[in-house]
């Protein structure tokens, strides 16, 4: 799990670790999983982001463009030559 544990920062999809079922001692959480969970806090679902700046309390920004860019980046990563699996 990722609470205060070391997190390997990597964008390579091949770096996924298989987690033993029932084990709560997962040392490596993939960056993709972190993005999936962290960004799932309303952002992806709602397609907008709440910010409050310069005294204006709420500003909504469209985030579709973000997701698109992440997906495109991942596709290009996937398309690169695969490294040998563990």
């Amino acid at each position, binding site marked *: *799990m990722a609470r205060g544990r070391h997190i390997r920062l990597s964008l390579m999809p091949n770096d*996924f670790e298989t987690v033993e079922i*029932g084990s709560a001692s997962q040392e490596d959480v993939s960056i993709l999983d972190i993005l999936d*969970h962290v960004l799932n806090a309303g952002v992806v679902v709602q397609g907008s982001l709440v910010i409050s700046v310069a005294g204006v309390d709420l500003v909504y920004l469209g985030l579709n463009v973000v997701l698109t860019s992440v997906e495109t980046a991942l596709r290009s990563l996937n398309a690169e030559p695969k490294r040998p699996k563990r």
Partner: protein
Amino acid sequence: MAIPSRNPEPATALGKALYLYAVSRLSSGTSASGTSARGPSARSTPGPLQSAGVDGIHPVLPVIADGFICWVSVVDAAAFADALGRNLENLEWLALHSVRHQEVVGEIAAATEVVPARFGTVFSGEAALLRNIQERKTALGKVFKKITAADEWGVKVFAERQPVPAAMAEVKSGSDYLRQKAARLKKRPERNDAELQQLATQLARVARASAPTGKVSGSQPDLLWQATFLLPRTRRRQWNQLLQKFVQRWEGARRIEVNGPWPPYSFVSDAE
């Protein structure tokens, strides 16, 4: 309406903003007599976190608001407010800051119940933050009820790659090749087949709630199915037994990966 703050003002100044990570409840044991919410010595009052803020520099501090504790750090308004949209499109930036965000929220979640804020929630200052919390007080209370004593878990099912048997690997003729290709195609597992549905249904029965997993990891090779669950901590054993059952049933054909426990990121949208 201005909410009087019991806290020392975080050093928001020109060009600075407050980044909100999560909201926890001010427990009854926590001192609200409050000259300071940060006394590192007083056990009952929350102190700054070990993890650095999302910018890697500023400390994460508790700000007490209306029975809640807002966990915030000072950020540069240029990067986190003015240019946030552009930065979010930069995958490297997004990755680094999501990890830091998770480290902070994870540290809080390890100690207490939290409602995580959306990634990139920034306020102009403490007054704006307190006003916002005041407005969402009722919704926040409901969300705390929903997520109490539960964690978020991600479950993924992958197809195991079938190694080509050595005897078959040798292709002597065109018909050999076609036979092998047919065998491989036959083995390709179906997405959304009955057994995957069974797993989904049974997991949902043990969990308190479920949600679709974000799209980011959806392009992993051989991924057949994934979902996110809110699991009461008292049901961990039941949950593991259920997963174990499917692990055994699918041995050699499918692999199950579970990640968690996460703070309940995917189950707090109602707090808006």
